[in-house]
């Protein structure tokens, strides 16, 4: 297959094109259930944001098959360097919605101790889901360093580095792919081409005929895959990961998909995304696509869908309630974790903040609203 062709597995009638995913019914349904939980997460977070309970969220609608197909191709001992639009990867691997909701609220139980905006998850169990930062593309080269450590220890683990089409314009993309190819590092680079970097379409991002073709210049295989076809993404990522485990080096995968919602809950995509385009991609819905496949395998009914949807919503809604009831982090968390040990100047500043709070009361929380 050349980088010009697009890999797909699920046929329009729900059959599969000459590829046996070798997944049990249980695994297939876990993928489906995870897609539905991501949808529930989106729905609950939109409500919470509109109600002013959380400041911000990132909608995943449209890209669930890419997230979950890729997650289903890596093991718990592998590392994921995620983008911010990768809720499905976390949920697939068993990261709990309650822990994710703690981050959405930035509360005392948040693994990032309320220091980051919502959606900037960081987990080490049950899989390494690397701490997310906001600047685009910086994690791509870091993923290569983590993979180098695996190489050095002769592990057979791999790193899955996920980013969007906008991320391919970053410095980290160039250095990441270049270093990984030279070092033959065990990395799978997953470019989720959802066609929009906030409001900028792919035509503003690159003049290349695809993102996958960029692999050729770096000296690694490039594969373009239907990002709305969960099994196609899983196939591409699995093959790349297995090659990497055997010392075959990195691969760049472009998952061609579409961001059905805004960049975030603060973004209005109707200002820049043509309506006809949305309608066209609505027909390629990744969940409906996977449902056709499951139905053909006699694993899916409308009743099952409704049950899973209801269960998922109840689970995520309950998680939000737990997070909502958890208090804010204590003021001491401003001053810890800057270094392993608190240096004298930071200790003094913390002491001064405590003293002031005792003498004059707490600082006003303000009502900052995030614009992007």
């Amino acid at each position, binding site marked *: 297959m050349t980088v010009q062709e697009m890999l797909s597995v699920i046929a329009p009638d729900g059959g599969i094109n000459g590829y046996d995913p070798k997944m049990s019914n249980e695994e297939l349904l876990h993928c489906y259930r995870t897609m539905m939980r991501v949808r529930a997460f989106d729905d609950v977070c939109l409500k919470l944001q509109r109600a002013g309970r959380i400041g911000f969220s990132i909608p995943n609608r449209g890209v669930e098959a890419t997230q979950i197909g890729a997650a289903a191709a890596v093991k718990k001992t592998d590392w994921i360097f995620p983008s911010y639009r990768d809720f499905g990867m976390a949920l697939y691997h068993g990261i709990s919605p309650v822990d994710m909701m703690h981050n959405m609220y930035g509360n005392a139980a948040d693994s990032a101790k309320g220091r980051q905006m919502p959606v900037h998850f960081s987990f080490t169990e049950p899989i390494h889901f690397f701490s997310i930062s906001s600047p685009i593309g910086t994690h791509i080269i870091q993923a290569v360093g983590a993979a180098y450590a695996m190489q050095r220890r002769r592990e057979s683990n791999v790193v899955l580095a996920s980013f969007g089409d906008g991320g391919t314009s970053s410095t980290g993309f160039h250095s990441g792919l270049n270093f990984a190819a030279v070092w033959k590092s065990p990395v799978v680079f997953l470019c989720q081409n959802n066609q929009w970097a906030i409001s900028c379409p792919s035509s503003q991002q690159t003049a290349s005929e695809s993102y996958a073709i960029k692999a050729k210049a770096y000296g690694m295989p490039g594969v373009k895959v239907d990002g709305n076809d969960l099994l196609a993404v899983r196939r591409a990522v699995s093959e790349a990961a297995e090659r990497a485990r055997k010392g075959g080096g990195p691969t760049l995968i472009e998952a061609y998909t579409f961001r059905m919602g805004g960049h975030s809950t603060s973004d209005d995509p109707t200002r820049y995304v043509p309506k006809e385009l949305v309608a066209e991609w609505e027909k390629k819905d990744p969940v409906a696509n996977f449902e056709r496949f499951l139905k053909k395998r006699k694993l899916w009914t409308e009743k099952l869908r409704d049950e899973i949807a209801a269960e998922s919503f109840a689970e995520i809604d309950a998680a939000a309630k737990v997070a909502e009831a958890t208090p804010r982090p204590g003021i001491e968390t401003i001053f810890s974790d800057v270094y*392993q040990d608190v240096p004298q100047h930071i200790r003094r500043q913390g002491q001064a903040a405590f003293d002031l709070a005792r003498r004059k009361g707490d600082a006003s929380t303000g009502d900052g609203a995030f614009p992007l």
Partner: protein
Amino acid sequence: MPTLTLIQAVNDGLKTAMRTDPNVVVFGEDVGPKGGVFLATEGLTKEFGDGRCFDTPLSEDGIVGAAIGMAANGLRPVCEIQFQDFIFPAFDQIVSEAAKLRYRSGGQYTAPMVIRTPYGGGIRGGLYHSQSGEAYFCHTPGLKVVIPSTPHDAKGLLLAAIDDPDPVLFLEPKALYRMLKGEVPEGKYTVDLSTLRTVREGKNVTIFCYGAMVPVCEKAAQQAAEKGIECLVVDLRTLLPLDEEGVIEAAKQTGRVVVVHEAPRFCGFGGEISAIIAENAIEYMESPIARVTGFDTPFPNTLEHHYIPDDRRVLDAIEHVWSY
């Protein structure tokens, strides 16, 4: 005890770290078989193999970004940026990534790593092989900034930096690489970070300096002594986190302060030292604080000897604060 130059002490420190900890890896541009443009990494690839000391593609952000991933996943990377002037493509990886990783992940991920880089003038390197950029980095919570001025400290501070659980920017005064020799213990020892070194005792004027300015200040202090002015010379060694109490104490001892650095003056590290003294010990001051620094211009090539503070300028400042 062997007598080494500062660059030999760095090399000895790297070898010592690599012999004692198999997770230490050294990499950067031309650091492999060539041994680095200043020969700091000479012999490492031969002794430890090209999996532990190796060349990278020519990309500073790539070098530092990869180091972060290695550090987060169990290695102890010691990477080299060939000249500190070339570090700015990696600025984002240093200040927004390495320095913030522990904080933003609630301590789940950390970046114990060292970035070594030669800084400062004195080699006719012009604008882009001479800069002293420490102030940019000292404004970054989560980062440590260390500058040795003797062979003994170069090895001891480097080994402490490699052991440190947080990212350390290790700025090496290239002007001193081969200028002076000193006794350096064999094997492993460390010099604690965030500690000052008293270079010379004196009761009249306190001079704060670091890196390549330390021998310049020693020379000026000697000349001042011949004129009857006794200077307390303090080598800061670690700029961040700074031993603020030590600085305040040293300022109080004389009540007259000169701060010397090679970097430009405006928003330079001397401003921070001055503010710490003003906030904590102004009632002890007998004269205004004097700063002797590089000019607020880019670094010139042919006339670099006018730009870099020398003993004339430091002595002039000592006499100014003493006679005030």
